[in-house]
């Protein structure tokens, strides 16, 4: 089971990993994960922020759950190859549970987030960050930081994109480039800007 030594150094490593996941290795802009909903749900800042928030919660929580399931159950049993099935079941079950809990206790929040929750199960950013976490052998605390950072990074990218796209509504864009085409070009320019963060962390 991966550990990073004493507790304070682990916390520091988690903070650094979180920062890296938001800026230098943004899950969307450098790993292209979560593109489908990024292209289709980035038309309005409000909905983008709602979906982003839901993704932050789901990635952070499923990182914790899947870390425990992987290192405490699958690895001791030698069943690592079952991880894809286990991860996707845990993610689907967690999303379903979250949907029921929110519906029960906060109808207002359910109205704001409810429609996005089913979409999140098939959002590659969730499964992707869980798989990265396992491949990179992150310790528990670092995994929490990584999950949080991945979620925040994705949320930031989709909110920024929605803001830009709202402004684009009135501009004249070639017919073939309208919609997804221009979104991808903007995403490319954003990714270019984020390359500027490379080297901030060693």
């Amino acid at each position, binding site marked *: 089971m991966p550990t990073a030594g004493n507790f304070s150094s682990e916390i520091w490593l988690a903070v650094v990993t979180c920062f890296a996941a938001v800026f230098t290795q943004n899950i969307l802009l450098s790993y292209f994960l979560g593109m489908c909903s990024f292209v289709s749900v980035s038309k309005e800042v409000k909905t983008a922020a709602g979906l982003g928030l839901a993704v932050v919660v789901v990635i952070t929580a499923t990182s914790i759950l899947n870390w425990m399931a992987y290192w405490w159950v699958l690895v001791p049993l030698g069943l690592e190859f079952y991880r894809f099935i286990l991860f*996707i079941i845990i993610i*689907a079950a967690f999303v379903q549970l979250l949907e029921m809990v929110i519906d029960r206790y906060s109808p207002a929040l359910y109205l704001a987030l409810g429609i996005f929750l089913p979409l999140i199960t098939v959002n590659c950013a*969730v499964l992707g960050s869980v*798989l990265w976490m396992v491949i990179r052998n992150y310790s528990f605390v670092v995994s929490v930081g990584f999950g949080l950072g991945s979620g925040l990074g994705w949320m930031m990218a989709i909110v920024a994109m929605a803001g830009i796209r709202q402004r684009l509504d009135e501009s004249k864009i070639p017919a073939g480039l309208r919609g997804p085409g221009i979104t991808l070009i903007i*995403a490319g320019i954003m*990714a270019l800007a984020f390359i500027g963060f490379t080297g901030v962390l060693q």
Partner: protein
Amino acid sequence: MNGQTVTKPAKQIILDGLWYDNAIFRQILGICSTLAVTNNVLNTLVMCISLSLVTALSGMTVSALRNWTPRSVRMMVQTLIIAFFVIIVDILLRAYWPEMSRNLGPYVGLIITNCIVMGRCEAFAGTNRPWPSFLDGLFSGLGYSVVLLAIAAFRELLGMGTILGFAMPYFSTHWDKWIIMVMPPGGFFVLAMVLWLCRSVEIKRKS
């Protein structure tokens, strides 16, 4: 499930998959899991073959089980079938080509959440016989592969001056390499150009 089948000739299934309903430029589906590896033609080729096989085989399986799957749990059943084939691909890659498995990292596993696989199972395999579903999955996968391989070829050629690792005549010697092409922004730009081109062709064809 009522077991009713929609008959569509094999030729139409193939054409739809390759062009008319092409997953990428018609529906913008499934770019997540593969775009990241398109800075290298070889990695893309392996990903595309894996994806086409998973789509075809899971389409066939979903179709074969369609009359025994209750509607309420069909998403879960589909996900498990897809995950089953992805695990087989992952194990095969790790056993026979560990280096490639490391290069692809988490992206093989991400085929599970690729919208194309689930999309074809849901839209086609659920109401069709196994053999047409297999064809549909295979050719949807191939239509997707053609676009991604074109993207990969552009990116590797302009960014590294090679294709499949072989040095190309002009590009490896006189070409000032566009490193940005093999970095993430290059992927976004090239995909946007491909979309622009295909959509413009389609708009012209319709008018």
